[in-house]
């Protein structure tokens, strides 16, 4: 799915990611943990080039998306992302938040065909109305899935943090992505709202979604993760299935870390 080859990220003289190579396969749930400043968020943000890597390659669907010549927007449609601060569009209702990107991109893709069809009186091509209606139905279905149907026409400012994050997950699911990146999805939540978001993430995982999750939730890592990566000093220092990772850590820094957080 995603192959990371010799990924390096520098800010000036500071090396944040130091020659990382890792491969994420379809259906895997990769959980990334590590102390703050270890580069785990930067690593995640490099996977969809929200941060441009300073060196190395990110191979997604056979193409190196770290290459500046590649149309990154095309690839990002297939890589969902969920943020710590939710980042719902404040000027759009919940439903519009979910529909916006699918409608916009599908309209853009079919623009030429639709204009041609208009002049040829060709009715086989999908119309703007149908695109919007399809996206709407899909959005409503997703809202039902995340249990927030009744919030469809409200604005994000009237939602709780947990609800916002569930909408944000629905928004990325609406694009039918091949993989979803989660950047500390529960770190900005009140403790009592963490559960509902983790529960939803677990359901998404059970449906077979490929996921890369940066988190401090060790329980989630243990329960849902198929692999756990431990990052320290810009390197991946441990990469194991959760059972081994937690019961039999080898790296001394990881041992120290686990002794503090568990």
């Amino acid at each position, binding site marked *: 799915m995603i192959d990371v080859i010799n990924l390096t990220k520098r800010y000036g003289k500071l090396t944040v990611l130091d020659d990382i190579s890792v491969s994420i396969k379809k259906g895997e749930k990769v959980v990334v943990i590590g102390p703050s400043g270890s580069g785990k968020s930067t690593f995640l943000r490099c996977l*969809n080039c*929200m941060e441009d890597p300073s060196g190395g390659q990110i191979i997604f669907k056979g193409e190196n998306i770290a290459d500046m010549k590649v149309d990154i*927007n*095309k*690839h*990002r*449609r*297939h*890589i*969902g*992302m969920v*943020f710590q*601060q*939710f*980042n*719902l*569009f*404040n*000027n*759009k209702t919940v439903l519009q938040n979910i529909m*916006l*990107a699918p409608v*916009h*991109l599908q309209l853009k893709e079919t623009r030429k065909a639709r204009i041609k069809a208009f002049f040829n009186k060709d009715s086989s091509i999908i119309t703007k109305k149908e695109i919007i209606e399809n996206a709407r139905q899909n959005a409503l279905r997703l809202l039902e899935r995340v249990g927030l149907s009744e919030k469809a026409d*409200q*604005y*994000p*400012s*009237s939602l709780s943090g947990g609800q916002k994050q569930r909408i*944000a997950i629905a*928004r*990325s699911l609406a*694009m039918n992505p091949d993989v979803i990146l989660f950047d500390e999805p529960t770190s900005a939540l009140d403790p009592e709202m963490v559960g509902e978001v983790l529960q939803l993430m677990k359901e998404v995982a059970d449906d077979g979604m490929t996921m890369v999750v940066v988190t401090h939730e060790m329980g989630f890592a243990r329960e849902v993760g198929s692999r756990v990566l431990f990052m320290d000093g810009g390197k991946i220092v441990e990469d194991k299935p959760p059972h081994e990772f937690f019961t039999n850590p080898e790296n001394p820094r990881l041992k120290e870390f686990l002794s503090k957080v568990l």
Partner: protein
Amino acid sequence: MGKFNVKWEAFADSWREGGDARVIEGLKNTLTIAIIGLVIGIVIGVIIAVVRVMPKYKLLPKILDKICYIYTSFFRGTPMVVQLLVGYYVLFPLMGITVSSLVTCIIIFGLNSGAYLSETMRAGINSVDSGQMEAGRALGLSYGATMIKIVVPQAIKNILPTIGNEFISLIKETSVVSFVGAVDLYNAFRYIGSNNYEFMVPYLIMAMFYIVIVLIISLGIKLMERSLRKSDRRN
């Protein structure tokens, strides 16, 4: 106060003898110049602001940025009257275009407010949380699409009071358009006054016209802000 009656009568005479039509024309022109000028200004302001906040890896944005910088420096660095005069008597004749003084005023007012609004708009865009842009880009939307659909609407909402102030100052600045021969409110009332050299009442009423227009606009802005704020309200 007896004298005021005489002056009032003089004004009433002038008003009846064609002054009323002149004032209506002036009012219409004042509003036309300010409204169309503001619309042009907002469009130009958004374009310049987006150019100026755009990431500048490539050559084209760098060049555009320089052009925008020169543009804003010129319009912010010279008085409106000078811009009108240069436009009407220098630029348009040099380009070989004949435009009426009203159209000149609309164009110059648009260009001028574009320069001022671009700075306001830039501040507005910077005031929108960077996460909004990130979320749009992460969904595969382009920089431009995210800007137009997500960031700029929020930016405009944030700077709406400033846009209102710009509109008000445009209304007031229209009082210089008679320099290039356009009829505005000031020009109309000066015409009324100069019929019989009684300026007291005409200019008093002119001031009232301006303040009523400005008060109405302020009210309009307040109402508009309230309706735009519905996305902030908890319901």
